[in-house]
């Protein structure tokens, strides 16, 4: 009898051990997330901060929430050199070796090369950049938490128009480059905005300049005749710098409106911050130095990338990673930790809404739908401006974006 008790105890212990081991094995469900980076292309200089934003979020998530739900995300990076042909040739290798459940894209080369392939390969792609109208297609597997650049600008324009001393339309001047689809689209979107709200917005002058101009003084002088309230330069840092220099030469104090990728921090590397006094950067995520942005603490604790610093770039890509892990959590809740797949993540992305809490103060709540690759409901943006030579938030609250139909 004694022996039987001992045997039973031993069996129970073995069974319990097996169960524990099995649970531990479940706790180690590992899935790959592939990431597109650009270490040898035009964005190499910001890539450390870009990758740091994503890496710190994924490491934090694996360490905390991932552990709790039994999923570990293995991140594989690929230097796509911001080149559509490199993306096209690397993608089959990513599919066969990484077998990713989600792909984090970097820019338009990823989008144009993969948007037709993703639905066939059943891998959703999440972007960190704003979108452009040509990529505003339905039933795609490419998503961004940010709407189009024009939507983002519209949010700030609406805020500024409401604060004009007199009741009139906001006079907008634009500086951009012909021949580059994304750049042209930014202007087209703002023109569409002015057409939709003629009493609120008026595009008074569009100046087309070289992609990397040495000077735009004559163009700004021409634009100045129309007395713009602001000059939109959503393209690149070189154009922001040239516009700022032109304004200084002409003795004008018109504010420049920039995006996240060519924003005030980047421009201030070439010209004194004081020259950008009153100018803006606008984007659909919170400014990196906003006290409500808790992901800054995550970055401070988990960043392992040498040269990676917390700023607009890192905040932008942290948002991208936060949406990815939020989708993983939702997918796990639906299909279980052992059954994650690209399809499960795609379904989870569309199954929203995602609450603002998921995004650590970086983004508002969002809902993705099949009819657009970005959220279209209740869009809101935040902006930064230079005041007294220092960067500060324009508004503590999210600024709503006026409804803007596809142009």
């Amino acid at each position: 009898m004694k022996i039987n008790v001992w045997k039973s105890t031993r069996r129970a212990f073995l069974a319990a051990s097996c169960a524990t081991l099995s649970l531990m094995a479940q706790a180690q469900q590992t899935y790959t997330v592939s990431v597109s980076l650009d270490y040898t292309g035009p964005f190499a200089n910001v890539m450390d901060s870009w990758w740091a934003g994503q890496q710190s979020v994924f490491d934090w998530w694996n360490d905390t929430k991932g552990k709790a739900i039994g999923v570990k995300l293995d991140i594989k990076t690929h230097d796509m050199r911001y080149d559509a042909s490199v993306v096209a040739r690397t993608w089959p290798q990513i599919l066969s070796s990484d077998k990713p459940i989600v792909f984090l894209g970097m820019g338009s080369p990823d989008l144009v090369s993969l948007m037709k392939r993703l639905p066939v390969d059943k891998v959703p792609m999440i972007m960190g950049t704003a979108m452009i109208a040509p990529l505003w297609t339905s039933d795609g597997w490419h998503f961004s938490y940010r709407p189009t650049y024009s939507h983002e600008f519209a949010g700030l324009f609406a805020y500024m128009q409401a604060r004009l001393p007199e009741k009139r339309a906001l006079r907008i001047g634009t500086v951009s480059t012909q021949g580059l689809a994304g750049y042209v689209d930014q202007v087209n979107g703002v023109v569409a905005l002015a057409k939709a709200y003629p009493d609120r917005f008026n595009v008074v002058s569009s100046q087309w300049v070289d992609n990397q101009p040495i000077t735009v003084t004559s163009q700004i002088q021409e634009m100045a005749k129309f007395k713009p309230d602001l000059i939109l330069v959503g393209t690149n840092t070189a154009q922001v710098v040239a516009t700022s220099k032109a304004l200084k030469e002409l003795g004008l104090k018109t504010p420049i409106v920039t995006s996240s990728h060519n924003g005030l921090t980047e421009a201030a590397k070439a010209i004194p911050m004081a020259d950008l006094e009153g100018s803006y950067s606008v984007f659909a995520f919170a400014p990196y130095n906003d006290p409500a942005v808790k992901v800054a603490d995550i970055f401070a604790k988990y960043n392992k990338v040498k040269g990676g610093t917390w700023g607009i770039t890192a905040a932008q890509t942290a948002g991208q990673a936060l949406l990815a892990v939020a989708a993983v959590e939702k997918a796990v809740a639906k299909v279980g930790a052992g059954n994650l797949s690209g399809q499960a993540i795609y379904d989870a992305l569309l199954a929203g809404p995602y609450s603002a809490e998921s995004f650590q103060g970086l983004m508002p709540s969002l809902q993705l739908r099949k009819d657009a690759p970005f959220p279209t409901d209740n869009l809101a943006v935040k902006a930064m401006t230079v005041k007294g030579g220092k960067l500060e938030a324009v508004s503590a609250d999210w600024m709503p974006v006026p409804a803007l139909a596809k142009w």
Partner: protein
Amino acid sequence: MSMLPSGVFFQSYAAEQGLLRTWPQRLGLAASLLLLASMGWLMNDYWLGILTLGGITLVAVLGLHITIGMAGLLNLGQSAFVGIGAFVAASMASNGWSIWVTLPCSGLAAGVVSILFGLPAVRIKGFYLALTTIAAQIIFPIVMIRLPDGWFGGSAGMSVEPPVILGWVINTPRSYFLLVLSVAAVAFLAATNLGRSRTGRAFRAIHDNDIASSVVGVNLAKVKIQAFFAGALFAGFSGALYAYFVRYVSTDQFTLWLSVWYVGMLIVGGMHSPFGAMLGVAVITLLQEGVHLLGTKVLSSFTGMSGGTVFSLTNVVLGGVIILMLLFEPLGLAHRWSILKSSYRIWPYPRG
């Protein structure tokens, strides 16, 4: 005419002029083609992608070999002609045309457009001609965006469905590779034979001395335009392959920078033979991939280094290697290969 090992004699002019004159040469070519085709099964997807893109680039550089290497007309707008081919292929494919139609039409379209930019070559040459070809590069995106959206997609560009050949959908790395390999092989053969034709000899004549060649009856205007047309024809084919490979075309994919790389590849390989074009594409592509892999290794081995720094250094290494190659072998790698070959053929006697 390259030398042969002693003891090889021909009994007819055709045999003397043949591209492949001995059994070992024929066997070598067959083995090389077989080896290349078998890469589709031997290589992983990553290397297949590199080989496929290398093949697409080779077709465009072979075109440059005709315009610059054979005819001596400096062309810095080859990427624009590649772009024209890509857009024509994308547009026709979206209207349901088969690759059998889109491929030749892409080449012809690029060739026809190139005539516009070849016309100034009748009057000008050298740097001045290079400037007019740069104009092609600048005008190309502006025109493409301004044309009605229904033609080439306007500023949005166009997506491209994979081609279907005899019911076989070309949508895997291996099938893309075999398609590109076939076209590149035909392009290589065509470029080689062009150099041996009457037209090719006229190209060489204007390359060496255009005034003297006009004195002996070469129609300068016609031959220069033919040279531009032939070079752009190859660019158009390359563009069509590119469109099918990347599956999306937009104007910002065809830049002046790409044109400069094409010329760089031709110079490094040797601009006077199709083999030089092939060597240039192979060496520059391998060099790019090599320094890139090296950069990745350095980055993973030395965690204290910043990615931006490592990869900036790889670009410096790449540029430095190209400069060294130009300093020590300005006639290109094909010349070095030719020296090696002749040394082997007259062995054990010393060369020269």
